[in-house]
């Protein structure tokens, strides 16, 4: 029965509807608990359904759905990050009195889109999934209605994102016009060499995806959108939607690697190196934590694109480890940012002053995450970078490897500023410090993931 293969997505859709309906009947005081509780339940069932389909490789729905281990890995990834994000945003939504049911429903809607994107090799379905992610993302970015920055974020993201979608569709129409099919396998199969129309179509399609990834030179929207968006949503942008786009780009590139090797692969390399370097260089000058993390995520996207440029099985294995660790460290840092923000400390680097004294757990965890993002052993970030580095040396791309290492050194500078602020500078914390169990749980889980991957990266490759 083909609906069995769609079980994770059906779960999400049912969860969204349940959350919206439940919101209409429960008392006002318990609306937030209900929405988040149902959200947790939905994502847990989603995780179980995705795990149950772990080893399956099968097509369904006239080729629109492809369930395979590569996609299932990312569904599990989405399930876990989604659960952590709900914990991350619970108190934030309460503090700002945002509409809880709508918040959770939109977030789960984005996850439904991401889930479709990673399990389709049919361009139309993938595009619908991408639009589902994009439209809910625009809305979530503008969710703080009283905050002009948030409105600006949503509007900028919406206008520029629409241009990207149009570019992508234009590319798809070229590919369809030439081959008469929307299936990636059929498109790739009916080509012998890199014909002009296919090259244009592929480039337009890739440009659209790279735009959504905020890779250089399509990155200018990202810092504004990520700064203005609510903090948990900023976290979602950097570990959720971008990863789904990355997987779609990977499916596309891996199908066309033979045909377009000459034309497209070197653009990809340029974009990867550009993203790393520009992201790291501009991050040096940032003082706002969210902007800094935005540029840092641009740089990390650069590293991840290297894996696609290489295209070897080792590189893909490295990608899994890198994405897993990067997401954990990022979610952890955003949990700490959410906490300092909730103590009315703002979201500047200086807000971390004295963090190591007042909240030693968060201080230490911040150290772990920063080490991981830089790539210092024994954290998981080191493993991710090492595997990627070895994969590029294996393919005799020595200069690329050197550039990657230099960029790692560059990133030490701005990540270190966070640690210096937390440990070596102090300031009064005026407001009484409140603990937040949900955020502490997120930080602890992230620390465990980062440290375990540091000694045993294999668990992300099973």
């Amino acid at each position, binding site marked *: 029965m083909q609906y069995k293969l769609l079980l994770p997505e059906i779960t999400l859709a049912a969860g969204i509807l349940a959350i919206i309906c439940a919101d209409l009947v429960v008392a006002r005081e318990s609306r937030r608990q209900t929405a988040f509780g149902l959200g947790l339940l939905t994502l847990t069932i989603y995780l179980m359904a995705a795990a149950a389909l772990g080893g399956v490789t099968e097509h369904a729905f006239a080729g629109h759905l492809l369930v395979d281990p590569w996609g299932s890995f990312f569904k599990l990834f989405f399930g876990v990050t989604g659960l952590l994000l709900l914990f991350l945003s619970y108190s934030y939504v309460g503090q700002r009195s945002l509409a809880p049911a709508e918040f959770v429903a939109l977030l789960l809607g984005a996850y439904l889109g991401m889930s479709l994107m990673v399990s389709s090799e049919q361009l*139309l379905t993938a595009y619908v999934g991408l*639009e589902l992610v994009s439209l809910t993302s625009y809305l979530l970015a503008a*969710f703080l209605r009283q905050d002009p920055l948030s409105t600006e974020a949503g509007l900028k993201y919406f206008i520029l994102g629409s241009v990207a979608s149009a570019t992508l569709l234009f590319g798809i129409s070229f590919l369809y016009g030439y081959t008469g099919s929307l299936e990636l396998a059929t498109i790739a199969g009916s080509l012998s060499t890199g014909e002009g129309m296919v090259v244009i179509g592929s480039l337009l399609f890739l440009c659209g995806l790279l735009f959504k990834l905020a890779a250089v030179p399509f990155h200018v929207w990202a810092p504004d959108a990520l700064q203005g968006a609510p903090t948990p949503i900023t976290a979602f942008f950097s570990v959720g939607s971008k990863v789904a786009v990355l997987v779609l780009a990977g499916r596309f590139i891996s199908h066309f690697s033979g045909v377009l090797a000459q034309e497209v692969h070197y653009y990809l390399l340029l974009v990867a190196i550009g993203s790393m370097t520009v992201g790291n260089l501009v991050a040096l000058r940032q003082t706002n934590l969210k902007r800094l993390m935005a540029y840092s995520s641009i740089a990390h996207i650069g590293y991840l694109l290297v894996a696609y440029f290489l295209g070897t099985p080792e590189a893909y294995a490295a990608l899994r480890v890198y994405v897993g660790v990067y997401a954990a460290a990022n979610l952890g840092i955003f949990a700490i940012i959410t906490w300092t923000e909730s103590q009315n400390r703002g979201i500047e680097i200086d807000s971390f002053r004295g963090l190591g004294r007042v909240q030693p757990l968060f201080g230490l965890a911040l150290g772990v995450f920063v080490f991981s993002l830089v790539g210092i052993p024994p954290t998981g970030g080191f493993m991710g970078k090492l595997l990627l580095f070895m994969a590029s040396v294996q393919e005799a791309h020595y200069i690329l490897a050197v550039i990657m290492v230099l960029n790692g050194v560059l990133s030490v500078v701005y990540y270190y500023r966070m640690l210096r602020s937390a440990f070596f500078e102090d300031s009064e914390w005026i407001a009484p410090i409140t603990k937040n169990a949900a955020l502490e749980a997120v930080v602890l889980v992230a620390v465990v993931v980062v440290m375990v991957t540091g000694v045993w990266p294999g668990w992300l490759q099973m």
Partner: protein
Amino acid sequence: MSLEQLLFLVVAAVIVLAALGAVFARRIMHAALCAVVVFTAVGGIYAIIGSYFIAVAQVLIYIGAVATVLVFAVMLSGQKDIAGGSPIRRQARWKTVLTWAAFVVGLVMVFQFTLNLTVPASGPANAPMAAESATSLRFLGQLLFYDYLLPFEVISLLLLLVLIGAVVIARKESDPQ
């Protein structure tokens, strides 16, 4: 040049001119009306290539619904001119010129490419999908509810979520949550 090509060129010219009008019109109502012309002319393109059903759907949806809502929104907003149209600053001017130059060069390159292309036999233009089958409602319905069932259903969810999100964003501050 066949009659079909001539028709296409005329309609395409109308689309481009009206689109430019929509972008450059000073009065927002004029821009909206230009958009209506674009919608209609796009329907004309569908009719020229023989997709009569899509042409009718285009007219019904875009003129019947989208354009009406557009004009309503313009009238409700009560704004006559496009406000905030500050002149381009001198520093920014070269950037604008550069962007346009890049855009034009890109367009020319795309044209150059497309002119030299030949659509292979497998392309949809030469596919055995005959005109009558493509336009028949039965065929379209089968496509929508068998082959394209999954994206079709996902789009319904997308519309629901966007509707909810739009209400959240646009709701008045004072409204109780």
